[in-house]
């Protein structure tokens, strides 16, 4: 792996972790309004997949989107400003934490409706196919989404139409308060893809390099063979469903055990093997932390939107007096 990419991977991992820890803090302090869903434990999936993508490839995310947005190189200050509900937010304050999205970075959207993303990404991928485009299309969703009809309909159509795209399922052990295995019918989650004869691969979602490798190969296979591929990455949701969640349903022992596989911990342990020495690692870490601090400093001081901004951009064209 080239140095630049390696540094990028580590920087993103740290950035996401520092960012989410800061979010947890401000959530406790109640500095910001609304629901906050953090993704501590998902860093390797966010970064590993995005490392395999080009900057302008298409992705969809969910309400748990901070990591995806950061890994997709969205502007950290604007992300933070959005979470703070400020005018300079990445969605002008209209989206909030759950809907962070930057179309210019290929982020089609962060959807609050479970399984709403896969059909939308199917559409982007279809567009690429029709226009002989080169962009890859990736839909991120959770273990809970595979039970939903919208996922199934998208998967079926993608396979039928030979659409190159990735269905990336983050199996983090929980859908809200419900453990994945409590709802699983098959031995492995990825068996769901058998309904469509869809190719699927599983990987360790805590190992950023494994995620990267699997995704990379899947992209090549998907493009070459013009097929969709289902990827299941297993990891652990250290955060609650949202900040403020008591997490009583997550057994202490389970959390402790999961810490052994913390994706950041594993990445640090692996850094030497990848030719990253401790000094460099420390340097990257500091840069990441600094950027996060700067982003929050920025956001805190940003102006609020004008109330009347609520009326803008509902449509491309519509008589103002009818809004």
């Amino acid at each position, binding site marked *: 792996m080239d140095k630049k990419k390696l540094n990028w991977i580590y920087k993103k991992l740290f950035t996401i972790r520092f960012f989410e820890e800061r979010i947890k803090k401000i959530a406790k302090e109640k500095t910001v309004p609304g629901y906050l869903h953090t993704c501590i434990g998902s860093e390797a999936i966010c970064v590993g997949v995005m490392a395999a993508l080009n900057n302008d490839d298409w992705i969809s995310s969910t309400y748990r989107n901070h990591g995806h947005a950061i890994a997709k190189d969205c502007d950290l200050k604007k992300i933070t400003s959005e979470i703070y509900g400020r005018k300079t937010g990445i*969605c002008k304050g209209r989206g909030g934490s759950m*809907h962070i999205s930057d179309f210019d970075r290929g982020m089609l*959207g962060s959807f609050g409706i479970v399984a709403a993303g896969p*059909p939308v990404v*199917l559409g982007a991928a279809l*567009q690429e196919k029709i*226009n002989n485009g080169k962009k890859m299309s990736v839909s991120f969703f959770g273990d809970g989404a595979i039970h939903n009809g919208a996922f199934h*309909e998208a998967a079926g159509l993608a396979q039928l*139409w030979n659409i190159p795209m990735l269905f990336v399922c983050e199996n983090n052990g929980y859908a809200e308060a419900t453990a994945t295995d409590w709802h699983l019918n098959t031995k492995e989650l990825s068996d769901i893809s058998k309904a469509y004869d869809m190719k699927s691969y599983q990987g360790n979602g805590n190992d950023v390099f494994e995620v990267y490798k699997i995704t990379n190969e899947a992209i090549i296979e998907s493009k070459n063979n013009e097929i969709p591929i289902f990827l299941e990455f297993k990891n652990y949701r250290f955060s609650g469903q949202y900040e403020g969640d008591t997490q009583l349903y997550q057994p202490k022992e389970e959390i402790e055990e999961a810490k052994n596989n913390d994706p950041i911990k594993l990445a640090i342990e692996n850094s030497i093997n990848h030719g990253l020495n401790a000094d460099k690692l420390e340097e990257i870490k500091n840069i990441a932390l600094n950027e996060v601090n700067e982003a929050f400093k920025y956001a805190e001081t940003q102006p609020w939107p004008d109330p009347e901004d609520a009326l803008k951009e509902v449509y491309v064209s519509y008589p103002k007096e009818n809004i």
Partner: protein
Amino acid sequence: MPIKTVKEAINDALVQSFENDKNVILMGEDIAGGKGREQYQGTQDAWGGPFGVTQGLFTKFGAERVRDTTIAEAGFFGAAVGAAMTGLRPIVELMYVDFAGVCFDQMMNQAAKVRYMFGGKQKVPMVVRTVVGAGFRAGSEHSQTLYSLYTHIPGLKVVAPYDAYDAKGLLLASIQDDDPVIFMEHKRLYMTKCEVPDDLKPIPLGKGKIRKSGNDITIIAIQRMNLFAEEAAKKLAEDSINCEIIDPRTYSPLDEELIFESVKKTGKVIVVDESNPKCSLASEITSLISEKCFSDLKSPVAKITAPHTPVPFSPPMEDYYIPSAEKIINVAKNF
């Protein structure tokens, strides 16, 4: 000038749009009927959907742009949203509007909201073509109109043409529009005819039409109800009651000015809507008039709608369910 049915006019608009813009695609069920058995030639493109509206498109423009879908509306409506966001102009078919409930989320939460909630960078230039309306003896699950469900949702535009001329002009405009449009076709109007110029320009969305001018009573008629309004107006003319008939044509946005002007003139209004009454277009238009033309009104706005029941199958009951010219006449005479 050529005389066309609504069905032909819509087909024309589709063909024209496909020819003018390579980004236009179509997705729907059975629009490539018969293509399933590739070994048999001449059997494909036999259907064009159950009403045959899209027939010929598959053969003309190919399987890439005319996509036969599975019965997976949530899937391909979502795909239309994503395709629209990334550069295509997809048209999707909801075979009957009665199936709205299986894919309402993609319209309400994605198509309608991505532009707004993601900060205005995106647009969703997609069109949902769907078939509405009672009077076809098609029973409770193939006869609804549901105009108001879509009109309620900010971010969507709602269009419902009455005649072939408007159908073509409004569909051309809908496909060129940069916002998601629900384009509602009434099954009982498909075979009605009128003159449609070959070079008809797109008709701007949000502009109503005075189908007949008059001074005594304003009849605001929703889609097929224009038929009954015209019938009623003819009869009422015999009694020297001169009706003005307004077809709003698009419900979101609604041409309020046109309506208010007419009401100012007549002071008496009948709104005719084939939908169920509660939270209907009829209620919406009535409430707007009552608010904005309060002192112009000589009597309360009269709403003529279907009752608060599903659409019954049997002809006597269905005929009773649907508003009629007689009902309009009765109301008019009692003003």
